[in-house]
């Protein structure tokens, strides 16, 4: 589990890692979906979907619009319940308290309390996950995402990109073993995209499994593994190689 209290202090750039942490070698999967299916009023959004993710993996989840990517992520987050099959996070069924402790979910649409400042959001979310002193980590994230001047601002004052960055900070301010990010690069300017790349890579280095739903070629190329979904079914699972993926997208 990524825990900044044990793994590092901010460096000069506000970076997280001063101590390099080796990826975990635990063979048990952090995320295990078996025969996962989800229907909406007779429409199959996901069917017989099986997938295992291990510590240290950075997975790009790709597929056309409506393929079932968000359905899979929300099922893993415990926001949706499967119509068939199971999905476990750190060995526990998605949605249970241990699974919620292990998984951080970054939604495609940021949500905030309109009466809490960004700093209060960070303190609150960290406390809800049992982190007593989130100050250093929160300060790092705000600085790296360029939000330090907005710490005391309300979400209503944020632009679309700033809301996205604030949502990223909230997903990363707490410890996790798996991070599921739904289109996290949307609305970010190039420097912020670069920072997010770094943050995801650091999370991966620290032993978390990271899943990023995306359409961006640069994110796919940076991933260690690519999972393609088409019509609610697993259509590709392998390295992010251009030829193989090209065939997937041609379909």
């Amino acid at each position: 589990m990524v825990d900044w209290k044990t793994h590092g202090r901010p460096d000069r750039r506000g970076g997280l890692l001063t101590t390099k942490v080796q990826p975990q070698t635990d063979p048990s999967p952090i995320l295990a979906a078996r025969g996962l299916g989800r229907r909406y009023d007779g429409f199959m959004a996901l069917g017989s979907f099986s997938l295992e993710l291990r510590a240290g993996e950075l997975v790009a989840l790709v597929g056309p619009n409506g393929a079932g990517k968000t359905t899979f992520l929300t099922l893993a987050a415990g926001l949706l319940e499967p119509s068939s099959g199971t999905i476990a996070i750190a060995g526990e069924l998605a949605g249970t308290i241990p699974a919620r402790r292990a998984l951080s979910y970054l939604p495609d649409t940021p949500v905030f309390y309109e009466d809490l400042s960004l700093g209060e959001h960070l303190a609150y979310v960290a406390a809800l996950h049992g982190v007593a002193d989130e100050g250093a980590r929160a300060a790092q994230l705000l600085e790296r995402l360029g939000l330090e001047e907005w710490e005391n601002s309300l979400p209503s004052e944020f632009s679309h990109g700033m809301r996205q960055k604030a949502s990223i900070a909230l997903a990363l301010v707490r410890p996790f073993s798996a991070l599921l990010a739904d289109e996290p690069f949307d609305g970010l300017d190039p420097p912020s995209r670069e920072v997010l790349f770094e943050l995801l890579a650091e999370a991966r280095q620290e032993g978390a499994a990271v899943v990023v739903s995306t359409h961006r070629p640069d994110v796919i190329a940076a991933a260690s593994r690519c999972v393609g979904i088409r019509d609610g079914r697993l259509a590709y699972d392998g390295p992010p190689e251009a030829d193989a993926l090209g065939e997937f997208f041609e379909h």
Partner: protein
Amino acid sequence: MQTAALGEMRSARRRRFVERLDVMEVLYRVYLAAIFGAIGLAVLASWVEEAPATARAVADMRDHGPAVLGLAVALAVLMGMRSGARGGPLAIEAAEVQYVLLAPIDRGVTLRPAALRQLRIAVLAGAVLGAAIGNFVFRRLPGSPVEWIACLGLFGALLPPCTLSAALLASGRRLRPAVATAIGAGLLAWTLADLLLGSTTSPATLVGEIATLPLPGGGPVALAGLGLGLAIALALGWFGLRSVGRIALEAARRRAALTAELRFSASVQDLRTVVLLRRQLASERPRRRPWIRLRTAVSSRYPVWRRGWQSFLRWPLARLARVAAIGVAAGAATAGAWSGISLLFVLPGALLMVAALDLVEPLAQEADHPTRRELLPVAAATLIQRHLVPSFAAMASVLLIATLAALAFGASATAAGVGAVVLFPTALVLVCCAAFSATNDPYAYVLTPQLGYAQSAAPLVIAVVAAGAPVLAAREVARHGGPAVSAAAGVEIVMLLLAVAMAWWIGKRMADQTAVVAS
């Protein structure tokens, strides 16, 4: 630690909310509410007859009162069950779902305070309303004022929590809508059987016993019923609160988004959006297959008429049942009003307006899309006025149900004659009122909100008058031995003129809107 953080943050948010309140604004609202409440109570009091009820009426009430009130309880449970099966009754903020319900904390601990708060408000509101009704009832029925106020206050305190608790139970136990409806309908049928057989077996009838306790002749059976009824209502609340932590997040998220929009739309009196959002909240979607397929050859000559009926024939069963139930309730209220309870004259118009808002859906969809409307080779006013025709025909069917229901609930042959006379004109006025409401621009009077309130309230007021005034006039004339049907017809002529004026106004409004879009 997590629970403490939750408590601290909620307290801080409450404090911040209170700090931001404008004290003078709150006091002004309380002052207005007190004044209008007092006026309302005075009007109600003046309408309630104070002549003591006859011995036979009291005996009837003793025998059937608990079951009649039990029907209200069963209906409350049915509504709660259906709401719970769709994720109600809690409206959780989207951020609360994302950050608190996904945090490693027992969801029961996080959600119970909100559920308790809703229960508290419901209990208090119900108790006040029940006690106020008790204050009127003791004037006509035997029993001391204290007994009536206490018993009706207690019954009132239990009725709304029955809805909330049933909803909490259904959402916590993840009951499917069909199962939840079956349970609620089963309780309703059981209570109806009690009413027909004069027995006291259904849990809802037992809760109804609480309200009729001051009537003579109850004895230990009524007392036992009261105890059991109270225990049942409290048990329902306890089980509901216990299961609150198991609600489905999917439904909670959906509900969170919809209720936020619903509150905003209600705050700007955008009734059309409120209707649409309420349908989404209730998962009311048109049927893929219509109940009946219209024959093209006949109906294609009248495309607007055909379009209207295509919409009605795709109504989900729940909407059909609701509109039919509204017809029955309006008929029952009219029968009650005809028999002497003048207060009930307010109800039919208000109820039928709800049905009319459903029935003007094809027209409202046309009004929602001015650009699409502009592309049609028909004048906007003509198009919208043509849309009134199928809605009027369907509304007349609902009023026919209401008339038959009034007869079934004991209205006289004279009342039936009055019903036949008022049916078509009232249907036209109601449809015009609903169309007026659905085509309102909620932002037309942003700078003069009083005009905005008047614009929103006018259709409802006209609907209440249109459905109540002709029958009230006819009843008064009949009491004095005059021609009741002629009296109703006289009032209806005025109503018809009003309907024509409204139809013209709606057409003009659409034409103006289209001109703005075109420019």
